[in-house]
């Protein structure tokens, strides 16, 4: 296996959790809700995903546990922000604090245990093709699913009536309500979907990326996923590009460390975080007065009058 192939493979692996979580959050934000609790839902997905896989011995069931954990946590968020009209920023922070604590509690018993990582696809003949074989035909199920998920979201948003309604709710909840659309219910479903995706993205880490669980193993990936949604201008296509770009930054620093360059490892480790700050600055500036592509009612509380 050549170095290039190894790098590309590891970039894909590093990008997949970001892509999964960001794809879910994109749908949430398109409906007009800002859920900052992605980090908390991801780490819960990681803890519950690992616990599920360890106890059942099945990666698939583990992934389902991760999905369920993320969705369950997002339920609390939905109740607070949609049912109780709580400030979405504050509720998202609370979700992260709770998720980090709960995952530590749940994962404590599993630290140090190992599982069999998710199996990679193997198609005789195709997978063996040099360079592209492993990349296209030798990934695990998470990777294929993440790409299909984004494609599905694109199709849903731009090609279905339900997607049109979702975009409309994010553009103006007052108008949507006046036309009789159940704004809060639609947002509730979007938040649950986002939670499920974040849970799956988190579960990817112990199930496929590293075959063990450590507390805090998401290491800010949830926040980077949130930044990716901004980076993508709320468009699924650009989300894929952004996720792979960030995956590449993560991987390049690993390889640079492996090459023994005389750079402090801490500086290399901080690259993804610094990159996020810089990219957010550049993107926001580039948009400038041309207008943000953000859904018009993003983050605003909606209480229908009756």
């Amino acid at each position, binding site marked *: 296996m050549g170095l290039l192939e190894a790098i590309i493979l590891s970039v894909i692996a590093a990008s997949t959790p970001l892509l999964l979580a960001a794809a879910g959050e994109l749908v949430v934000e398109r409906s007009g809700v800002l859920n900052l609790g992605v980090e908390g839902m991801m780490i819960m997905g990681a803890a519950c995903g690992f616990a599920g896989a360890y106890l059942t011995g099945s990666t698939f069931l583990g992934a389902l546990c991760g999905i369920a954990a993320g969705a369950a946590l997002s339920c*609390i968020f939905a109740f607070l922000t949609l049912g*109780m*009209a709580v400030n979405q920023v504050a509720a998202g922070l*609370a979700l992260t604090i709770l998720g980090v*604590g709960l995952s530590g509690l749940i994962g404590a018993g599993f630290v140090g245990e190992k599982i069999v990582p998710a199996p990679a696809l193997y198609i005789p003949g195709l997978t063996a093709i040099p360079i592209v074989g492993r990349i296209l035909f030798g990934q695990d199920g998470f990777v294929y699913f993440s790409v299909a998920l984004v494609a599905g979201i694109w199709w849903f948003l731009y090609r279905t009536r339900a997607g049109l309604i979702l975009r409309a709710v994010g553009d103006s909840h007052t108008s949507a309500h006046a036309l009789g659309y159940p704004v809060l219910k639609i947002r509730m479903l979007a938040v649950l979907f986002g939670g499920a995706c974040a849970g799956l993205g988190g579960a990817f880490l112990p199930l496929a990326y590293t075959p063990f669980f450590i507390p805090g193993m998401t*290491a800010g990936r949830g*926040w980077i996923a949130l*930044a990716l949604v901004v980076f993508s201008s709320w468009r699924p296509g650009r989300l894929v590009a952004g996720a792979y770009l960030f995956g590449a930054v993560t991987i390049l620093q690993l390889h640079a460390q492996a090459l023994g360059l005389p750079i402090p490892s801490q500086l290399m480790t901080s690259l993804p975080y610094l990159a996020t700050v810089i990219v*957010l600055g550049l993107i926001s500036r580039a948009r400038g007065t041309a207008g943000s592509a953000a859904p018009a009612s993003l983050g605003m509380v909606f209480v229908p009058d*009756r």
Partner: protein
Amino acid sequence: MQLVLEKRAERSTFIAVASPLIAIAFTLITMAVLFAILGKNPIAALNVYFVEPLTDSYSLMEIAVKATPLVMIAIGLSLCYLANVWNIGAEGQFIMGAVCGSWLAVVTNGTGAGHWVLPAMLVMGALGGALWALIPAICKVRFGANEILTSLMLVYVADLIMDYLVRGPWRDPKGLNFPTTAAFDPVATVPTLLDGSRLHAGSVAALIVVMLATVMLGRTIKGFESRVVGAAPRAARFGGFNSKQLVIFTFMVSGALAGLAGIIEVAGPVGVLQPGISPGYGFTAIIVAFLGRLNPVGILIAGLFLALTFIGGEGAQISMKIPLDLTKVFQGILLFYVLACDSLILYRIRLIFPLKKAAQGNVHGTA
């Protein structure tokens, strides 16, 4: 059945005062259930968590020690949140304050420098925190970058900077390869208030900060500006208040307070710069700020309460083998209840029972 919110004509002053108490009550009930799930006696566990620390003077002083950074950081954060500026990177500003102040302690270590060292360290710490907070502020004002994400990303970076320093250039050569600086000289240490206790002068500083914040928010035009920019940005601009300057101002003040808390923590109870100087003070302070309803005196009380949970959590771990992570769960749940109860200040809840047949379309009756 359906839960419906109705806007109140005016905010309810009663709920504004009662909401933190209601939230705490709900949290305690939830915690009791959690303890039971973990197989512990809920009454005994709550007792260890919330009552025992209040019964001996050592624990009481430890509560004050832990509350000091929480209150100082939360006061700064409350200023930000009132102005609708979302600084959530106080943890990073805390660390950078500790790092910048420690620099002086490290370079003067063993040189016999005079009593100017500690005051200079405090200034450096506040400055370090303020400048670290300036980065997201400038990114927001100049480029429109979301301050939530940038301020949070910088927490990881600050953590790594400190890690690099204590493992590299600042490592104590006699420290058996542990990642830590040499112990600070007495002139670089915050004095204790009582001999033999860990209670230090920083707690007094926190009380002064609370008083200054009370005056500033309640009585000055700057405090009014912060509140009005947060409550109604367009009206604030019409009033002649510059929200961009306010972003810079609130970020720098909160960064300075977090940085000051950081250097006081390092130069006080800890005594060296080393990883893990903060058990998440910067994040817990967010909860403190909300539980205190963004009011300085409320924050003082809330800071003491959350410090109690840290101490109680440690006690519960030792005596009942309750995992330390439960404290974080507790804090998360508390914040949820606080936010939910706060919503009752502006809205009242009604339960609606839909018509017997809430089918789609219309119900035909007899004309």
